[in-house]
């Protein structure tokens, strides 16, 4: 019996992971291959100044803030929630760091930025878990107020920084790889480790999968949900540091604009449903990379970069349709029974035969 379990253990999760990550990974690879066909130099990676350089490296480097935010968002979505405020938190974090850099050391500046993000996350979490306000509504408050807060901190200016170590967050390289990507990967790895090694993952999936059953199993979901919002804000804070380091300054208006939507999209593409429950951090990372590749592709093809939005609209629609049980049911019904009975298909028609 036990021996059986041991072999099952090896097979079970592997088969499952393969299944869940298959489509997002396939889409990513297809997109990359498409690029290769259009421009054969797309995959070219060369070493310049001791670090790697090329389109692929750009994707990793520019995609890291999105990966970070999407990882935080994944946990929030797993609890049937959503965090719309991450873009605003990005702006706040960058603003605090850049302003503080003027007077203190880099560590204190980063500490102050992330500290404030924790407070903002705690506020979101309190609204959702404490006051039981719907997540969309609760995080909308900070989404609206956050950018004002960021501008308040910067005094409405675009604060620029010259601090070398700070600029290295986005521009630096370690072991030939971009530092920002390594930070994102470290957060991802750490999160995966904590979530799967502690009981957090199991409890979050329970809360999202079936809140009432979780309550009746003795789970106190409030604190867990609160924690997710705090973590999401922290991730957004780190992403904010990277973004402001990348543009060498803090722009309260435009830093992280619309990144919440990209992050939600990355989570959904990665196979985590907006209705909560089972989540996949690995899928989210792939989703984020897919979105970043899309942006890079559009740029490489010479299409005005803003038109990525059109592609995103198509991707969102397709992914959501594929995930929608109603859509799948309708598709299956049509395929199986070309002439479905009038009762089901036309709810507004009556047949009264006398």
């Amino acid at each position, binding site marked *: *019996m*036990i021996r*059986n*379990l041991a072999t*099952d*253990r090896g097979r*079970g*999760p592997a088969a*499952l992971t393969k299944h869940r990550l298959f489509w997002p990974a396939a889409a990513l690879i297809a997109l990359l291959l498409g690029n290769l066909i259009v421009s054969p130099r797309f995959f070219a990676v060369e070493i310049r100044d001791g670090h790697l350089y090329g389109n692929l490296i750009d994707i990793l480097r520019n995609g890291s803030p999105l990966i970070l935010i999407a990882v935080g968002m994944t946990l929030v979505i797993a609890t049937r929630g959503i965090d719309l405020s991450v873009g605003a938190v990005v702006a706040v974090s960058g603003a605090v760091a850049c302003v503080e850099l003027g007077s203190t050391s880099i560590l204190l500046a980063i500490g102050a930025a992330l500290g404030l993000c924790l407070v903002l996350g705690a506020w979101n979490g309190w609204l959702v878990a404490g006051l039981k306000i719907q997540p969309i509504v609760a995080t909308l408050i900070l989404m609206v107020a956050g950018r004002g807060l960021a501008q308040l901190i910067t005094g409405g200016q675009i604060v620029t920084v010259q601090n070398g170590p700070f600029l290295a967050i986005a521009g630096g390289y370690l072991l030939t790889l971009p530092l920002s990507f390594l930070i994102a990967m470290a957060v991802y790895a750490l999160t995966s480790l904590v979530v799967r*090694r*502690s*009981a*957090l993952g*199991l*409890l979050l*999936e*329970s809360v999202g*999968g*079936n809140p*009432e*059953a*979780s*309550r*009746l*199993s*003795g*789970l*106190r979901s409030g604190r*867990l949900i609160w924690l997710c919002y705090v973590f999401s804000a922290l991730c957004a804070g780190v992403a904010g540091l990277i973004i402001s380091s990348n543009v060498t300054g803090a722009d309260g208006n435009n830093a992280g604009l619309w990144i919440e939507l990209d992050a939600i999209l990355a989570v959904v593409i990665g196979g985590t449903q907006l209705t909560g*429950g*089972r989540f996949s951090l690995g899928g989210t990372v792939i989703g984020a990379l897919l979105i970043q590749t899309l942006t890079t592709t559009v740029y490489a093809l010479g299409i005005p970069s803003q038109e990525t939005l059109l592609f995103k609209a198509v991707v969102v629609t397709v992914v959501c349709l594929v995930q929608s049980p109603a859509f799948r049911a309708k598709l299956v019904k049509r395929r199986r029974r070309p002439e479905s*009975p*009038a*009762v*089901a298909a*036309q*709810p*507004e*028609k*009556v*047949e*009264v*035969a*006398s």
Partner: protein
Amino acid sequence: MNDTAEILRMTGIRKRFPGVTALDGVDFRLFPGEVHALMGENGAGKSTLIKVLTGVEGVDAGSIELAGAAVAFAGPDQAQLAGVSTVYQEVNLCPNLSVAENILLGREPRRFGRIQWSRMRKRAEELLARLDLRIDVSAELGTLSIAVQQMVAIARALDVEARVLVLDEPTSSLDAREVEQLMAVLRALRADGMAILFVSHFIDQVFAIADRMTVLRNGKLVGEYRTSEITQVELVTKMIGKELAALDEVSERSAATGPELVATDGLARAGGIEPFSLTIRRGEVVGLAGLLGSGRTELARLLFGADHADHGTVDIDGRRVQLRSPRVAMNQGVAFCSENRKTEGLIAELTIRENIALAVQAGRGWLRPLSRRRQLELAAQYIEALDIRPADPEAVVGTLSGGNQQKVLLARWLATQPRLLILDEPTRGIDVGAKAEIQRLVATLSADGMAVLFVSAELEEVLRLSHHVAVLRDRKVVAQLANEGLTPEDIMATIADGGRS
């Protein structure tokens, strides 16, 4: 009565849902000027029959005739137009709209498309006056009591030229005076020639109002009876039926039980269960017998802290406890397997291992995880002990059969090593083999000293396992009997006469 033609005739109705046959060749007829009760246990097919009649669900076979013409409604709105109006168990109105709108929305008086509010209010007042109800019709529905809301729902049903009025458990949330008011309305409508289809779990009410009743069991028609020609005991017997499958004899119940573990005094929750006092000893199985809606589940939920009690006290092991939440009850060693495996029990998308580990893990908090090895050990232990199939701890629970899902839920709670195990309908909808295993398990657990509160609609099962039986009817504990030679007939008699003898 038979000289009038029937207004409604349903013949050979068959309805299948994936995995179950909800209705299997059911016939039903309804005459003008009668109240016809539709009776049956939960899952007998009453609601499905009503849904089929009102067009919420289509039929797979059979025919429906209204006043001699074949009909097939595509939805509730079409049924209403044809004169079949329904009042559902939960008030299905919009609490944010006014009373008048709730009565008339969809057919409000209009002129050139403009709603005429004053005419609408007047019309609503007239309709409510028919029910002897005088309230401000511009008040928001949600501000009124459930009883009044129910009346508003009936008023809505009456506004259309209704020939058939379907009432699906209209009294389940009403108090005695409100029920009387409703009954008076039904009598008046009957006198006007309305055909009324009435579904209720309250036997007294059915015998007080119905002229005729149709009994369903497991989706099949048991028979149609005149109220004057059937006794309450006969009705209950027909509803419950006989358990056909022969089960292995469960080993002898342990004779001696230990000291008192749980004692309640006057525990109650408004709209759920009236005050009851119950003691459960260590090693004792206490059975709860009663029809669905008699308050069995409500009683069990109070003992687990799933709902809050309004009155009364609970002592566990001689200490007064406030069961504020399931977590508090768990810490006291209480475990509760809900009757709704899907909505209140399992997390369908998680695996057997995760579902089994959940309650233990919830008790420890997220910072003290059970190691994966320990989880697998737990899963392996219970997969073997309860013979859960497939014997793969990584199988997703949603794909399991009902019996195996029930075992997983049971395993989750056994893993917490409770002192009191509350089982609400643990054997419903599972196959005979799994049923026998669960019964055997309950006997073993109690022999080992665990207290068990066993809730089941099947009287044989309750009697086979329990040392004591508490009988419920109409949200009251009407009798507590020591199980010494009790027969199902004794229990049925107690349910039927409400413990009066």
